[in-house]
């Protein structure tokens, strides 16, 4: 008998349907994955099952749990939650009560579900250890824990009631690569140990493939394809599924590129310290060292990738090179001119540009996209009006978009289109060095491939030099000639993508590679 049976579930929000006639089943102990991109309605499915739909949402259809329908009464539903169904949410920071300690919140989950017996505190500590935390973490407040630790607290809370079904909604998207892998392995382990059913929701195909045995693909509120993992991933029937799989593989070939020349950018002994507020007058704190005597260089025409876990200093280094931040020690040399960050001479500013990570934050919503793209042209004093106009048109066409889009506003475009405009803006001054900060990680999987192909083509056509920051080794493989691995402000290893992946020298590099999820198509033998 199925543990969870969802029949014809339709959810509407303020009149607009978010989910339409969704039907699926999860058996006892079964691992069920739901794959969808943003806007697919996958989170709503989870909320509907656990009975926590937001206000204003109406649901139709039936949801049956363990034979009986989900009760309508709030109090009765509350009894199901925690005890039989546990849920791990996406944003660990806002999902925990900031005013209570982690341990207290988990303890509450335990006592509510009637678990824990006489010594709740000991049980809580045992649970903490099971999810990979220390007993000492129980006394801390959420803001004193890292993202990965908070997510483990959420998992502990969901487990405290010993539920039969665990729902996880994008539990790892806010975490860095290594922690992601650890949390996924943890979920795998506890489901096996406890014989729990799992409903795992994600946009990340590989994560779902790793953990689940059955898969359902959703798009814009409708079920596209559903079935056994091997069937769906091995022989996809629907075009959308095939699209997702292809994008997931990202098997682009590095195109022919311009020949690599001499050093264009040299970074010497760059250090960046931040002052930290002292604990008290008598306990001064040492400064936070974001970059520690970093030495590296970028040659003309090459594409260099900076990888590393979060907090490694990659973005800090990029910002100093771009002239947005200041280094505390050391210097940067570009084109034989020396600077320290902020003091990047104006004449050089047009030679270095930056493409930002988040397409939603990179454009002023009150300016037309044309005005924003043209902004860097201020640096080109003395160029005629006509020529400026031509440049804008030229650069927009180069990224595959049309010049009559220029009069529109940012909110009218999709994420992928905005990122192309961001690239256009970066290219408009005909720079020599383009820094790209996680250029595709904020985009939907199906769009990433195109943007990467575009980047490679632009590099070849215009002879650009790239400095790419990423945590995604797959993407780096396609886009970079050389890779530098950073950790805690230092460079720990470097080499071509191939050598690094085959013969990693440092532990961290090995961790990063291990953290990458296995390719789909290479199905691990269960």
């Amino acid at each position: 008998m199925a543990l969870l049976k969802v029949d014809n579930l339709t959810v509407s929000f303020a009149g607009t349907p978010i989910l339409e006639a969704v039907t699926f089943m999860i058996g006892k102990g079964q691992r069920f994955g739901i794959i969808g991109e943003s806007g697919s309605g996958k989170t709503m499915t989870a909320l509907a099952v656990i009975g926590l739909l937001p206000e204003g949402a109406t649901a139709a259809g039936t949801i049956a749990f363990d034979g009986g329908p989900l009760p309508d009464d709030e109090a009765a539903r509350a009894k199901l939650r925690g005890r039989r169904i546990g849920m791990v949410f996406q944003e660990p920071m806002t999902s925990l009560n900031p005013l209570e300690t982690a341990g207290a919140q988990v303890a509450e989950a335990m006592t509510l579900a009637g678990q824990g017996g006489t010594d709740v505190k000991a049980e809580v500590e045992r649970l903490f250890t099971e999810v990979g935390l220390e007993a000492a973490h129980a006394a801390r407040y959420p803001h004193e824990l890292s993202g990965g630790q908070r997510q483990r607290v959420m998992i502990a809370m969901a487990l405290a009631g010993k539920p039969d079904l665990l729902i996880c909604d994008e539990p790892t998207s806010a975490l860095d690569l290594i922690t992601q892998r650890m949390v996924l392995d943890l979920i795998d382990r506890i489901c096996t140990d406890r014989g729990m059913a799992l409903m795992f929701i994600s946009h990340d195909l590989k994560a779902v493939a790793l953990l689940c045995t059955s898969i359902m693909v959703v798009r814009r509120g409708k079920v596209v394809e559903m079935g056994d993992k091997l069937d769906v991933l091995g022989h996809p029937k629907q075009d959308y599924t095939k699209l997702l799989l292809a994008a997931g593989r990202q098997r682009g070939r590095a195109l022919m590129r311009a020949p690599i020349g001499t050093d264009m950018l040299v970074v010497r002994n760059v250090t960046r310290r931040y002052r930290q507020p002292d604990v008290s007058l008598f306990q001064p704190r040492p400064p936070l060292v974001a970059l520690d005597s970093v030495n590296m260089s970028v040659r003309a025409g090459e594409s260099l990738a900076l990888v590393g876990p979060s907090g490694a200093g990659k973005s800090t280094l990029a910002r100093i090179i771009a002239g947005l931040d200041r280094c505390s020690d050391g210097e940067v040399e570009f084109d034989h001119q020396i600077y320290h960050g902020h003091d990047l001479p104006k004449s050089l500013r047009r030679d270095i540009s930056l493409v930002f990570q988040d397409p939603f934050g990179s454009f002023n919503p009150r300016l037309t996209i044309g005005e924003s793209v043209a902004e860097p042209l201020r640096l080109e004093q003395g160029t005629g009006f006509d020529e400026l106009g031509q440049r804008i048109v030229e650069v927009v066409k180069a990224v595959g978009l049309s010049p009559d889009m220029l009069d529109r506003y940012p909110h009218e475009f999709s994420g992928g289109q905005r990122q192309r405009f961001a690239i256009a803006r970066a290219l408009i001054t005909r720079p020599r060095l383009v820094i790209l900060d996680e250029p595709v990680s904020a985009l939907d999987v199906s769009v990433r491939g195109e943007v990467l192909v575009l980047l490679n083509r632009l590099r070849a056509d215009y002879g650009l030099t790239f400095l790419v920051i990423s945590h995604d080794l797959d993407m780096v493989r396609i886009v970079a000639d050389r890779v530098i691995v950073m950790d805690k402000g230092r460079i720990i290893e470097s080499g071509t993508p191939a050598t690094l992946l085959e013969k990693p020298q440092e532990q961290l590099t090995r961790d990063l590679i291990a953290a990458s999820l296995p390719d789909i198509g290479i199905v691990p033998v269960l």
Partner: protein
Amino acid sequence: MIWFALQKLLGLVATLLVAAAITFIALDLLPGDTARFILGINATPESVEALREQLGLNAPALERFFTWLRGMFVGDFGMSYTQREPVAGLIAGRLGVTLPLTFFAMILSAGIGLPIGILAARKRGSAVDTGLMTLSQLGVAVPNFWFGMLLVLLFAVTLRWLPPGGFVPWGDNVFGALGSLILPSFALALPQAAILARVMRTALVDVQSSDYIRTARAKGLTMSEAVWRHGVRNAMLPVLTILGLQFAYLVAGTVIVENVFYLPGLGRLIFDAISARDLILVRSSVMILIVAVIGTMFLTELAYGWVDPRLRARRDE
């Protein structure tokens, strides 16, 4: 927490010093010749000089400032020129009216406003909610002293339940004193209660749609249980801030409402002193008001730090 409190205390002292300095500059240095200012344009040079000696105005400014500060510390606020009595005594007498009035108004406004806000939040979207919020819109728009006039017209003149004004000294008749303060307290409390109701409702509504309440419900709590156990404390944070800020308004309001009810409070003292150009009296009375306001802000910040552990932590940027 101790370190946090000490830091805030330091801030308090610093702010008070600056406030005192500004008051001193405004009232002691800017008028130019203070003695002449007090006596008026037609005063003879001899009387001006005599007054200068009497008030110790020939000493350098900084010295006078510190003398004044030191004096306030020990309770010596100088002599009022116009009333020929120690200022301290005058103020103390008036405080016996102003302080209890402020206190009652505060309690009333919280006691009426907060429950209304909670009720409106719990019945969000219903007729009760709309009705209460409309009333609060009205309450916020009413000038407190005007409301006081209305209350007098209704309860004192028409119904004759309460006195229309004046104050029965505490010494004479405690109940009489309380009676004189009932109408003024309500007049003051009404707009404050309306503001508190709105803030409380907004805070609770925000809390209701927050992620951690969703998590609490996922643990097995019903919505009301979750809000009660987790939400209220979080909702108190913005309410506390407003309470602290509103106190400043309340102090100002007290001073004004006293006018409506002919209460011999601090307000009357100040206004009479202003007309009489009694700078010394004005100076010290203003300081008392400032101390009250800043002191309350300090207490609010302490309470905030006590409730929210994030403020006590060292920031890591």
